[in-house]
């Protein structure tokens, strides 16, 4: 596929930028490093758009089916066996092309935005270096053609996220958050790795195309059929492998119960939250499931997919409930992210495979795309607001529409989009998800439906309390509109949010890579219902928060304990702390350390001590009196004689 042979440049440029900035971080000062980073990203963006266009509209379509394109960079980077190997290859197919667009767009926007946001920060160059590193890893992740390769980039995005969360490394909270994020995801990755090992063992390949191929699936299903014994809780061993892989995805995508790192991750600079923890990295889990969709779908008739759907739905609901109660705007957004990703998981979970069956898959990907746009927008706006107000908390805000018109409008657009109000992007994707869910399982659909309303409510709670509500007195320094660079990014994403919905997504992305047609049935009760619930959510928010009222307090006290639990995120953190510190550290690790120092090492020392003690004890036989010596001498003789005489007969 030589017309794509240039494609290795897409990940290469950022990593080179990273190395360059990393080594010259001391020399190059702001804003040069920023310009360098942005320029390289612009190049990447251009390439990505070109590649995607070329793939979708020129090369990709071969007799009615989007054929994947494989560009092998280094075959046998590591050869485990003749079958199993890590090949450095780039796999281009609808979803990776789509992800290319998402990643490069958002990343570029964040780069531009940060020129203003990170202005006069001591770590300016370092920040851009990290951004490039992350971009590299993320692009690598979406482009990788090999399960192990994706794991490699998986780890790399993890570490770059670690570095970026802990960017303000002198803030203990930031350090703690970064540590938490890394370890939690690492914990998930462990299952991912085990899953990979199992898939490699049973599937005899790490290569996506091979794994997803008919033959492999057939082989595996045959194997399962012959080895019924190798099953656990009614699911075959291979399903478990898939579930393990999915746990890896849950870790990155902050699905319940591995979501706890996401809220803390907001310690990082806001652009980072926008890039990593809203748009790109957190959807890696979704992308992973989509990548292996054929396996997920076919093995055990999609038993694993069921798990995906349930986890997704539950996380969506769970996050939405918590989002009600949070005060820190970034945390609200974080939980809304979690909830939206739950949506996407749910969509994949409920999806079928052929043609219109695969609506859920398409919808999930579509929502991933749109969500990336508007959620990034929300975060960046939040960043602008925080930049202006110097606080994360809603109580310090209010009435900002006077000071920050642009931010206000783009935030409104984004909020409408996420609430699913036509004609904004969120509406289309969300609506298709609900449709798919409805066809799959009413209960799941109902959860989704509920969450739609809740989303609308808490988003507008956020909107009203920031921009309207009370007229806060900001003292001497008035909040000011964001500088040009930031505003540019906001506007651009705002436009994207408006138009993204009209992309005929199903023509491009689908489970079996066969385009199909799907449009909104404006008259169907589903559509109307979803619009209505969103609207009602907004309405309630309006009543409670447009003006300063005491409904919220009433509401909260009415909920009582439930509210407290929700506000404390259902004490998940505490649970984790308990398990790790109280149990693993204190009950397992400490005793082991003690055991090592005192028992094993003690034994070794004991040997020495005993020897010396023995030496001290026996010294008295050397009395220094020659008659005793003679005594020993003679008795020695006699003893030996006795012995020989005795043993001889």
């Amino acid at each position, binding site marked *: 596929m030589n017309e794509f042979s240039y494609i290795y440049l897409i990940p290469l440029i950022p990593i080179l930028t990273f190395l360059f900035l990393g080594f010259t971080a001391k020399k190059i000062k702001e804003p040069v490093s920023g310009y360098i980073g942005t320029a390289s990203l612009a190049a990447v963006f251009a390439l990505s758009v070109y590649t995607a266009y070329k793939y979708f509209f020129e090369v990709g379509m071969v007799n009615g089916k989007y054929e994947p394109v494989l560009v092998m960079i280094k075959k046998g980077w590591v050869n485990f066996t003749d079958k199993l190997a890590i090949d450095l290859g780039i796999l281009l197919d609808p979803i990776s092309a789509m992800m290319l667009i998402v990643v490069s767009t958002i990343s570029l926007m964040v780069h531009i935005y940060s020129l203003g946001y990170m202005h006069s920060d001591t770590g300016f160059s370092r920040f851009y270096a990290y951004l490039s590193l992350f971009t590299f890893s993320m692009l690598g992740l979406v482009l990788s053609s090999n399960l192990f390769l994706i794991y490699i980039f998986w780890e790399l995005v993890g570490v770059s996220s670690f570095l970026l969360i802990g960017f303000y490394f002198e803030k203990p909270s930031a350090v703690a958050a970064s540590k938490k994020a890394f370890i939690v995801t690492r914990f998930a990755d462990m299952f991912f790795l085990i899953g990979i090992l199992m898939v490699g063992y049973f599937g005899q390949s790490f290569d996506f195309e091979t794994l997803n191929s008919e033959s492999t699936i057939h082989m595996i299903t045959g194997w399962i059929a012959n080895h019924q014994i190798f099953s656990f809780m009614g699911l075959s061993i291979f399903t478990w492998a898939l579930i393990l892989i999915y746990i890896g995805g849950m870790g990155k995508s902050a699905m319940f119960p591995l979501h706890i790192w996401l809220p803390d991750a907001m310690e990082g600079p806001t652009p980072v939250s926008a890039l990593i923890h809203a748009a790109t990295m957190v959807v890696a889990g979704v992308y992973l499931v989509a990548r292996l969709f054929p396996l997920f779908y076919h093995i055990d008739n999609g038993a694993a997919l069921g798990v995906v759907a349930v986890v997704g739905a539950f996380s969506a609901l769970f996050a939405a409930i918590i989002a009600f109660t949070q005060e820190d705007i970034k945390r609200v957004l974080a939980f809304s992210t979690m909830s939206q990703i739950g949506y996407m998981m749910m969509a994949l979970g409920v999806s079928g495979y052929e043609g219109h069956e695969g609506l859920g898959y398409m919808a999930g990907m579509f929502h991933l795309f749109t969500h990336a746009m508007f959620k990034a927008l929300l975060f960046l706006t939040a960043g602008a607001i925080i930049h202006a107000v110097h606080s994360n908390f809603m109580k310090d805000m209010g009435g900002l529409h006077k000071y920050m018109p642009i931010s206000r409008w783009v935030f409104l657009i984004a909020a409408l989009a996420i609430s699913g109000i036509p004609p904004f992007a969120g509406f289309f994707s969300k609506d298709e998800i609900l449709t798919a869910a409805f066809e799959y399982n009413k209960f799941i659909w109902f959860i989704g439906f509920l969450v739609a309303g809740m989303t609308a409510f808490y988003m507008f709670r956020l909107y009203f309390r920031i921009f309207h509500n009370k007229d806060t007195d900001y003292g001497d320094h008035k909040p000011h509109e964001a500088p040009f660079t930031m505003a540019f990014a906001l506007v651009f994403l705002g436009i994207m949010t408006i138009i993204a919905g009209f992309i005929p997504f199903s023509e491009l992305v689908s489970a079996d890579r066969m385009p199909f047609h799907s449009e909104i049935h404006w008259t169907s009760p589903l559509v109307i219902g979803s619009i209505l619930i969103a609207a009602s959510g907004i309405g309630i928010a309006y009543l409670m928060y447009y003006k300063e009222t005491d409904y919220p307090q009433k509401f909260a006290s009415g909920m009582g304990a439930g509210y407290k639990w929700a506000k404390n995120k259902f004490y998940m953190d505490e649970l984790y702390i308990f398990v790790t510190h109280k149990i693993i550290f204190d009950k397992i690790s400490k005793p082991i350390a003690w055991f090592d120092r005192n028992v094993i090492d003690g034994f070794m020392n004991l040997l*020495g001590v005993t*020897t*010396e003690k*023995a*030496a*001290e004890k*026996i*010294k008295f036989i*050397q009395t*220094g009196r*020659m008659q*005793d*010596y*003679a005594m*020993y*001498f*003679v*008795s*020695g*003789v006699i003893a*030996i*004689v006795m*012995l*020989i*005489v005795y043993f*001889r007969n």
Partner: protein
Amino acid sequence: MDLDNFMLMRDEILLTVIILMMLVAEVLLSQKNKKYVIQLGLVLFAGYTFQSFIPNETGELFGGSYKTYPLVHLFKAILAFGVMMILLQSVTWIKEKLLPYDFAAEFFILIFSSLIGLNFMVSAGDFLMFYLGLELSTMPIIALTAFEFWNHRSVEAGVKYIMLASVSSAILLFGVSLVYATAGSIQFDVITGAMHLPLLEIIGLIMIFIGVGFKISLVPFHFWAADVYEGAPTVISNYLSVISKGGAVYVLMTLLFIVFKAFQTEWNWIMYGISILTMLIGNLFALRQQNMKRFLAFSSVAQAGFILLAMLSNNELGVKAIIYFLLIYIFSNVAAFGVVQVISLKTGKENIDDYTGLYRTNPKLSLVLMIALFSLAGIPPVAGFFAKFFLYAAAASKGYYLLIFIAVLNVTISLYYYLLPVRAAFLRTSENPIPYFKSDIYSKMAFVIAMVGLLVLGLYSGVFEYISGMSNIL
């Protein structure tokens, strides 16, 4: 004995001549020229040592009571070489301690006569010669042990040594008489032929071996060793620990391997036990010694235990291993004792703690000490490692793997205490270390020889090959 086979015992004769010349010199030299006795003795003995390396043909004298063959002759040469080194080290001691009393000549005479005794012992063909050699080798040394008659410890050592030695030789004699009774002869060849091991004979043999074991200081016949070594002048401790022990080992080997071969099987597992005991007791006692001489004494006890490993093998491999080990052992022990002596002569200090910070002041000396101790512990690339390894190999050739394991564990223990002086000398620093001093040219020569030996003899296999070339004595 007549002129043509006269040269067979040329070593002993030469030594006798040397002794006579010393006597004459002693008589002739005037009081102020007495010190030339030392040079005379050294020169004469150097000459003797050189000639002793000239091979000698096989043969026997006095109706088989004196035998000589290449290996025994080589061994005599090795002994002579060891004595030579010891003499070199003892020059200062003689000058400072003996000349005032005008004992220089006596010292040489006694040492040489003891060496004659050893020579006779190792090439004995019957019990009479053997017994004579034994006594002749012991008594002068006893005299020398008590030589520092102004020093109470020296005299006490002398008393202990002579009493216990007499007991052991008495017991040995009794054993000989029993063997004589059963075998009807005191000639080794005859006895070898006439061995059918009645109980009486076995008791006799045990007594004989124990008489030799006393000289080798095997547990439980080792008690004298430590006290005597500590009390005696360092030169004499040195001589005892290498030369006379070496000679005794050789005799024990020949008796076991050749003369009383039939008895070996009976005896083996007793030796198995004795060797374990010897290694263990020797190590445990050495572990907590402060006085260097006593420390080395116990270490040499432990070494004897290692030698028994090869004694068990009862094959040519064992012979080679033992001879080679003795050679290396002479080098290492002479060097170690030499350091102790030099220091104690200069400063009168003999304790390990006194050596603290030695390397900072006398680096060369402490290096010699370290290499010697490493050789004793058996650490490559120093020759001691190879010597020990061959002992193990000899034992392994008969499948005594457990014994080897125990032995090597003992090496680990011994390494601990061999490292103690090293620790004192190298690791630690002290406020008042032993000040720097120049040791005299003779002991320097001895040290250089020893070091070269220790570093070359192992890595260069020629010596071992040479020994094994002539050790087909079984």
